[in-house]
């Protein structure tokens, strides 16, 4: 039966292209494999031609799928499940892309898209290595194509097709969507006209970082395959050293982009999530950090190998592992295995068997190949000298590697539980359990980062080394000591030992910055094209410094000091009370500031509610206003989803977000007025004090009361004396308009009082008194101060720039070397 209004063509095109992509990537894999294995150049060439054609078809198909899916989402074609699930009409245009990669299918496509781009460049550029490298990449494309193909192989579902229709997926049922069904229980042919809007995008993802962070991160993910594919190709072709130089710019580029992508995620977490920081050692974060750490190891051992012939085996291992760990992280985050330990792991799509196969099909052959060839990989028989650069490069890589193993080991706890049936859970203080170990590593690694470039390959002469390094060492000492002494770093939550480790690490990271900055001028004589490594090291040092200072000096501003806290029995323990409730219009003491909740606002085209929070310095007549916002009761889900707002200073950020709002529904005003007969001078008691009726008259002091000139208006003036010796006035009124009596109540917000002038007779006036929470407008929030967070962001930018520069430099070098050969 045809359904009116459906556009089935885009879905058919998309599904068709998915199949094309599936076939083309398989064909490219086989053809490149044949090209690699064949001995005759003519055969090689013809296989290569087929392979290139197939990969071109793959590129076209993937881009086609991308465009088709984008078309479906941006045109709100709600007959498609993907569009309905991830978008709605309210969504601003810039977030349509976020919808695209919110779902599993979209993010797999994004990943696949980057492989196409990278593969295309390899076909154009890497002449000798094209065929063996592209075998791996084409195979990866094949694996990713199976993730979005969505076909049944016997009873086993392979992949999840993003082009499925709502009505085919059991998404529409007579119970949930009665209007779309006729009396026989069949779907009406015009059902689509009743689907007025989509499900929409998770509000946490409605942030500009979510538009750019995923593409960059996935470019990082995707690019790790290139050095991996080179290493595999080197093992396969038994050309153990030849792949190293062409792979180097790729490896450096990949590490740079992956690092940037990870930290963009951190920036998003900082700006949009409310765990109060940029990093929480969440499994999702760890899973992408670990491949980066190992890629860095690989780059450093590669350099050691290139100059001295040492560390080749380690280089193979690292480049193979970094990519396998990317696949492992995909498995961890998408299989739902992290369920109990992560806040934001993807949900289980029911594709676990396929994800596990995906992992094993890369892990097993890689290790088998490495194991088979391991003995043949050339090594240098002579031991490294302790004073040689290559020795310390290796030591540094080893430390990085151990810290990576540590992190992935802790993250994999749920996997261990699953395999061995144990019931281990993460540590009580998760952050500290990571930090206390890694701070020691960071100290040693930062020192090595500082001095390694001053060491010479093979052997370093002591005198020359000291001559070149004493000045940066001295400067670093002075700088870090001034931070330690005047920087007010006294983070004593975990005792003196940990504080000492922080100070030592601050020295080490300052040392890394200073020594590498110096090296640009003394070591490589200011030749900027060669300075990529030093710049990246400066950035690494700054990043570390920013992390150390912002984490150890993070300050809670919203310690609950307000008077409205009631002391409970269980309150007495040392748990931090970081939530502070601000009553509208009442300035509240918050450290250096007096903070006032001034009001809130909404806009019809924006589902968020904005809260105006004014911070005023106590000691000067200045201040600033922050506008944290929140989705309130989003889509009927009770509660709020808050986004923080920060005041950025050069040296610190003041950061605040809403944690709770009065629940209007729940705090429904259930209390009722208690009536009192009063004459002027009489007193009425209430729970927080008493009030006195001063007089009843016709003089109105309140503003904005809606009465007309013909009305008779009576006002009762009251003075309220609260227990805490504060005094308030109130003026409930009675408006007589013809035969109608309209009482206009008055409220005393800070006393939760509502007073109503209900009538009068000879005995006096009738005053209704009600005490109710519902009159109070308030917000509960947390506020933090992050010092030196800009040092961290600056460090990331500098580091990324250094990586890209180094990558560029090595591309140029390789090109020149090639020209010489010809």
């Amino acid at each position, binding site marked *: 039966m045809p359904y009116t209004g459906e556009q089935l063509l885009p879905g058919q095109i998309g599904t068709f292209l998915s199949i094309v992509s599936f076939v083309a990537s398989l064909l490219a894999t086989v053809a490149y494999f044949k090209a690699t294995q064949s001995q005759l150049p003519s055969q090689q060439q013809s296989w290569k031609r087929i392979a290139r054609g197939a990969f071109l078809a793959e590129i076209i198909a993937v881009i086609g799928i991308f465009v088709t899916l984008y078309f479906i989402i941006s045109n709100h074609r709600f007959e498609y499940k993907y569009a*309905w*699930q991830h978008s*709605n009409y309210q969504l601003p245009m810039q977030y349509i892309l976020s919808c695209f990669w919110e*779902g599993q299918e979209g993010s797999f496509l994004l990943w696949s898209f980057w492989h196409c781009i990278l593969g295309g460049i390899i076909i154009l550029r890497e002449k000798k290595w094209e065929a063996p490298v592209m075998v791996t990449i084409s195979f990866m494309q094949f694996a990713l194509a199976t993730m979005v193909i969505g076909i049944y192989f016997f009873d086993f579902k392979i992949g999840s097709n993003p082009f499925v229709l709502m009505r085919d997926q*059991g*998404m*529409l*049922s007579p119970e*949930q*969507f009665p*209007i*779309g069904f006729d009396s026989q229980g069949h779907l009406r042919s015009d059902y689509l006209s*009743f*689907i*007025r*809007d989509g*499900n929409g995008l998770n509000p946490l993802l409605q942030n500009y970082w979510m538009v750019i962070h995923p593409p960059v991160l996935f470019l990082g993910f995707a690019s790790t395959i290139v050095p991996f594919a080179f290493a595999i190709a080197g093992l396969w072709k038994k050309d153990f050293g030849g792949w190293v130089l062409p792979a180097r710019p790729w490896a450096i580029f990949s590490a740079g982009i992956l690092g940037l992508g990870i930290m963009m995620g951190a920036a998003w977490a900082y700006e949009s999530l409310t765990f109060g920081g940029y990093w929480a050692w969440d499994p999702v974060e760890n899973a992408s950090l670990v491949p980066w750490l190992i890629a860095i190891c690989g780059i450093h051992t590669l350099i050691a190998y290139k100059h001295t012939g040492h560390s080749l085996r380690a280089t193979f291992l690292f480049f193979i592992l970094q990519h396998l760990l990317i696949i492992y992280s995909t498995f961890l985050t998408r299989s739902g295995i992290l369920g*109990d330990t992560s806040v934001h792991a993807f*949900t*289980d*799509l029911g594709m676990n068997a396929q994800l596990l196969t995906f992992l094993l099909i890369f892990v097993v052959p890689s290790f088998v190949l490495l194991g088979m060839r391991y003995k043949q990989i050339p090594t240098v028989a002579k*031991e*490294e000298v*302790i004073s040689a650069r290559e*020795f310390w490069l290796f030591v540094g890589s*080893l430390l990085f590697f*151990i810290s990576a193993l*540590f992190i992935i080991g*802790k993250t994999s*706890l749920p996997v261990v539980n699953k395999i061995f049936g144990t*019931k*281990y*859970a*993460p540590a*009580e203080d998760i952050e500290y*359990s990571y930090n*206390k*170990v890694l701070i020691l590593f960071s100290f040693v690694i930062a020192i090595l980062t500082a001095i390694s470039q001053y060491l010479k390959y093979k052997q370093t002469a002591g005198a020359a080394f000291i001559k070149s390094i004493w000045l940066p060492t001295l400067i670093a000492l002075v700088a870090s000591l001034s931070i330690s002494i005047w920087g007010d770093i006294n983070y004593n939550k975990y005792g003196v030992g940990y504080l000492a480790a922080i100070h030592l690490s601050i020295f080490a990271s300052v040392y890394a910055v200073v020594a590498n900055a110096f090296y640009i001028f003394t070591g490589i004589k200011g030749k900027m094209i060669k300075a990529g490594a030093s710049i990246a090291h400066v950035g690494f040092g700054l990043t570390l410094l920013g992390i150390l200072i912002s984490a150890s000096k993070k300050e809670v501003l919203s310690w*609950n000091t307000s008077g409205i*806290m*009631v002391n*409970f029995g*269980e*309150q007495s323990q040392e*748990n*931090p*009370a*970081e*939530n*502070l*409730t601000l009553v509208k219009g009442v300035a509240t003491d918050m450290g250096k500031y007096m903070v006032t909740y001034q009001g809130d606002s909404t806009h019809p085209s924006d589902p968020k509610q904005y809260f105006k929070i004014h911070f005023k310095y106590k000691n000067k007549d200045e201040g600033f206003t922050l506008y944290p916002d929140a989705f309130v009761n989003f889509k009927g889900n009770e*509660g709020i*989803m808050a986004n923080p707002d920060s005041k950025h200073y050069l040296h610190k950020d003041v950061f605040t977000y809403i*944690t*709770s*709002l*009065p629940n209007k529904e729940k705090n429904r005003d259930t209390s009722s007025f208690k009536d009192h007969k009063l004459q002027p001078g009489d007193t009425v008691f209430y729970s927080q004090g008493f009030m006195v009726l001063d007089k009843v008259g016709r003089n109105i002091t309140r503003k904005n009361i809606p009465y007309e000139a013909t009305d008779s208006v009576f006002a009762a003036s009251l003075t309220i004396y609260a227990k805490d010796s504060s005094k308030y006035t109130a003026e409930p009124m009675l408006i007589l308009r013809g035969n109608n009596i309209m009482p206009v109540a008055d409220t005393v917000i800070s006393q939760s009082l509502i007073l109503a002038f209900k009538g009068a007779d000879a005995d006096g006036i009738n005053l209704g008194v009600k005490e109710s*929470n519902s009159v*109070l407008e308030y917000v*509960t929030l947390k506020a933090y101060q992050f010092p030196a967070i800009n040092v961290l962001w600056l460090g990331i930018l500098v580091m990324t720039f250094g990586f890209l520069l180094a990558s560029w430099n090595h591309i140029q070098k390789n090109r020149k070397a090639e020209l010489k050969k010809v």
Partner: protein
Amino acid sequence: MKTSHILILVVIAVGIGILISMMGDLSTYDTIESAKAKPGKFLHLIAKLDTTNGKHIEYDALKNPNYLSFHVKDSLGGATKVVYMKGKPPTDMERSERMVLKGKMTDSAFLCDDILIKCPSKYKEEKAKISTAAK
């Protein structure tokens, strides 16, 4: 002794050190019954929100924005009161099908540091709520 041997020994020593510190940090997943057997010990409790017999979530930001209490039960029949001293109830707490609570059991209640909510997945929602309101 060659430098590489020293290096390997150092690595092994560091590795063992880390492993020991890791094992010392680890806690366990427990049921309410087994948590009651070891009062004062930090653990992860897996349970479900209990709102039967008039039990309710108690939170009043005006009285104390850092005090939350509620009741949980688990499939083995255990039940306990939970006190959380860090703020408001997590979003969708009432709709949650499972909670992971981190904290310590005491005589009066389970003192909780962190609440992780597992909601029925939005992605696996079999029957969708279709918005049919005219725009």
